[in-house]
């Protein structure tokens, strides 16, 4: 089975200096922006659970995008450039706030937008079963 994660819809065009760079409009519905609303974004209920991508995933990078093979389910996922950037950051850090700050820095987003994107991304990774929730799962088996 193959799948493109929903994060795919975040457009690399939002990166400053990228062709067709278009920052999100005030409603957060700019071209290619993930439209999923996150009730946790920027709120007191923000999800700060530590999390990291599973260490056993096989990741192939291609021109800044990535293919991820999950040996447990035999599923393959496609990440576009933005999602790939976040995925790489998530391999290094278990703090969603750090990830949101990195994303905000790279794409010149405001804090709440960046947090919303990170929440949406993490939710999709969790749904796809690619997140290891506990430090014990971070190690390569």
């Amino acid at each position, binding site marked *: 089975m193959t799948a493109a994660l929903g994060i795919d819809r975040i457009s690399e065009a939002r990166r400053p200096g990228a062709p067709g760079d278009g920052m999100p409009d005030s409603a957060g519905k700019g071209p290619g922006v993930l439209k999923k609303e996150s009730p946790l974004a920027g709120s007191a209920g923000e999800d700060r659970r530590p999390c990291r991508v599973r260490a056993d995933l096989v990741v192939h990078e291609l*021109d800044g995008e990535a293919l991820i093979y999950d040996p447990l389910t035999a599923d393959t996922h496609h*990440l576009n450039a933005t999602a790939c950037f976040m995925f790489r950051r998530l391999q290094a850090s278990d703090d969603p706030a750090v990830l949101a700050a990195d994303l905000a820095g790279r794409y010149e987003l405001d804090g709440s937008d960046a947090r919303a994107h990170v929440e949406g991304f993490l939710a999709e990774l969790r749904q796809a079963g690619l997140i290891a929730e506990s430090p014990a799962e971070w190690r390569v088996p």
Partner: protein
Amino acid sequence: MNGGTHRRESTLHFQVGVVSTTISSAVRPVLDDYAALYAPFRTPRPAEGGIHVRVERARKGWFHRRRHIVTVNARRQFEPARAAEVVPYLDWAINWEVPRAYPQALHLHAASMSLGGQGLILPALSGSGKSTLASGLLARGWGYLSDEFAIVDTATLAVQPYPRCICIKKPSMPAVEVLGLPVFRRRYYLKGAKGYVGYIRATDVRADAVSSACPVRFIVFPKYVRGAEPALVPVSRAEAALALHEVCFNLLTCPTPALSMLTELVRGAQCYRLIAGDLERTCVLLERLFTCGGCQQSASA
């Protein structure tokens, strides 16, 4: 001796590109038809590790019409009932076995062609127009590798020839006949849900039509849209690798190395989606893609 017939079984050997087959049958019309269809690929001796297909005629029972049994490497594969179905099912049975018989290669459901020593693979599911497009390109002088398989060598990543006869569905036949391509014996066969099909032998079009192995330079995912203006839309290499993953026949037998190989394959190629319309205009578009190195995106440009 086989069920229901007392004729002696004959055995013929073929080397179709990298695929070796041995066909045994006492059903003479089937064997003769297949031998004629694949005459350019007959060999005197079997190759080691090839695919062995046996066609037998099953005994007619009280409740069953007389049918044929197609067995591949000792596994019963198909039981076509009508005589017109046997050759297509025999051909189909071989296709089923190719990825199993040659596990050292990557097998993609794709037509594969070449121009100037550069390979084009056209990966798509059935009904997307792969064979029609391969016929059109063949008529324009392209080298033929296969209409159904891209067999990619794992060591060199070159696409290998498997120049089986091109299977054209009856509705596509007028488009192919306009190009002057000869249909084998001008006869139609029955192939399951595909209905009536005819065959085109690449060597009937040109003696040197079969291409040798070559590197894959373009990966184009075709989709026939009736009446559409032919157009090429670039896709990222990661998207292309994901799409190739969906048409890979032997991914499950070796998923991790196969995915690495798909990644390497797309790294050396340019990748597009193709909206295929009128056959000639679509072929012209692909030719321009090759000659200008990947800048052409619509037939009218």
